């Protein structure tokens, strides 16, 4: 069963005074299966946050429909079994993290004992045990993000929706969020998150969707979306500075790029080039192979290509 089903979702805004029509979403469709970690990618203004806000019932849907865990969006039933972390979360800054989680638990309809036990567990899990008695206004950005994650998880949701959960976090904070996402996945939960950090998305997600200009451009497993053909190969050689100049010149002529540093040569050759022949030429020039690294298209390459395509279309329009 799909946990999220979005069909032809459209969202149109009107600007405040001139009432100009802005189509933020132009028929977004995708599904998220139970137990998946699903990444939602897109440049700024692509419609990621609007999609998430529509799913959370923060924005009215202008067209199409969406369901969460079989319940229509927006509905209380849909929100009952999910947790949400907004982008750059803001909370009542006079509350402590325990009080914030207690409020979240009350709104989720949890009993007092359940709320207390779950909050205690989550505070430890997100690493805020040392800051229990501290008002949220004294929290750093990373701490607020962790408090927000705990709030999203207070009702032990089946689905967790995270809007830019790594935004503004340092590498340690990012790792903690990544670990938390994986823990949720391992516990059988479904995680839907948007992010700009493509390396995180690539390493965490079972499937991704790329949203550009209010439309889904690609959807699928990261390895299926990118072109697996080797685009180029990087050959790193140890090469004496006094190596035969003619042999080195013949070698570098085989590559598309070459960079010579003290005792080393980094040669990049095209995807169609016979790497064995390059390595033979390297030996002939007196070089020793340190590394041979084939390069494929990455999610980042695909993402940038989609954004560039959209930019070109907008220029033509």
């Amino acid at each position, binding site marked *: 069963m799909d946990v999220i089903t979005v069909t032809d979702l459209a969202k149109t805004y009107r600007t405040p005074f001139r009432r100009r029509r802005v189509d933020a979403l132009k028929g977004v469709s995708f599904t998220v299966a139970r137990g998946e970690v699903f990444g939602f990618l897109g440049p700024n203004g692509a419609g990621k946050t609007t999609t998430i806000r529509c799913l959370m019932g923060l924005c009215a849907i202008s067209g199409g429909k969406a369901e969460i865990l079989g319940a229509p969006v927006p509905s*209380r039933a849909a929100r009952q079994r999910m947790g949400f972390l907004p982008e750059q979360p803001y909370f009542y800054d006079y509350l402590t993290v325990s009080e914030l989680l207690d409020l979240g638990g009350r709104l989720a309809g949890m009993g007092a004992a359940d709320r207390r036990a779950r909050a205690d567990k989550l505070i430890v899990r997100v690493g805020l045990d040392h800051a229990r008695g501290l008002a949220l206004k004294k929290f750093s950005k990373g701490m607020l993000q962790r408090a927000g994650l705990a709030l999203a998880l207070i009702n032990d949701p089946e689905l967790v929706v995270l809007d830019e959960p790594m935004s503004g976090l340092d590498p340690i904070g990012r790792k903690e969020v990544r670990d938390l996402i994986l823990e949720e996945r391992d516990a059988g939960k479904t995680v839907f998150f948007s992010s700009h950090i493509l390396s995180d998305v690539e390493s965490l997600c079972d499937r991704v969707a790329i949203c550009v200009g209010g439309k889904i451009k690609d959807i699928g497993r990261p390895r299926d979306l990118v072109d697996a053909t080797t685009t180029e190969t990087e050959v790193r050689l140890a090469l004496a500075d006094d190596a035969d100049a003619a042999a080195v010149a013949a070698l570098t002529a085989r590559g598309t790029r070459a960079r010579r540093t003290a005792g080393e040569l980094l040669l990049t050759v095209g995807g169609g080039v016979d790497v064995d022949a390059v390595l033979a030429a390297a030996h002939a020039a007196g070089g020793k192979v340190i590394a041979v690294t084939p390069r494929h298209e990455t999610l980042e390459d695909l993402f940038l290509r989609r954004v560039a395509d959209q930019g070109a279309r907008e220029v033509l329009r």
Partner: protein
Amino acid sequence: MTASLARIWAIALNTFREAARIKVLYAIVVVVVAVNLLAIALGEMSVSQHSRVARDFGIAGISLFGSLTAIFVGIVLLYGEIQKRTIYSIISKPLARWEFVVGKYLGMVLVLTALVAAFALAMTAVLAYQGVAVSGAVAKALVLAWFEVLTVAAIAVFFSSFSSPFLSGTFALALWAIGRVTPDLRAAIASSESTWIKWVAKGALVIVPDLHVFSISGGDVDGQHVSVNAGFVDWGYVAAAAAHGALWIAALLVLACAIFRKRDFV
């Protein structure tokens, strides 16, 4: 139903906690205490009218400062949540938007009730200092002033559901001022020769809550002069005025909920 009440109560308690941190509210309490102390000083200057001055000042202070506080707190009640983006984490919980609006209003009721109680305590202390017991008339006037404050709070919350604090404050103050002079509007309808003035006054009487019913000391009720210092209204009048206020509060909250339900939080 019980679950819904629990969610409303959670929002109300949080709103109370939030409002209790507004330092201006404590300043207002200090001002009201000062007004009551001023009543002692003015009472000393009058001849055998000590308690009259204390009662009039005390009740007028509750009505004025209570209403101003209701406007001050109410105009940011919903707008502030959207501006500060705290609403994203709350509305995404299994909470209906009307529960949020009602919870916020109830939290405000708790705050304003605590304030009115503090004001009433200050007045009682002044009366006790003057050796005067709190009469039934004063108790009735206090209940009326409390309902006026709660009605004004509902006006402010209604405007806060769709406009900025500045506009909400302007509209709420205007309605409060018009609502206090309904006898003058009725007089204008009866005596003015201008059709335009008659229509404006009639329109105002329909769309503006009649707040004069809560502050009738020194005015006329059914042709009889009433005063908190002499013959005052009976409890039947207080109940009717409270029902009038409750109906306006309900109507304003229903409108606020309907508007808030349609809002996009972007």
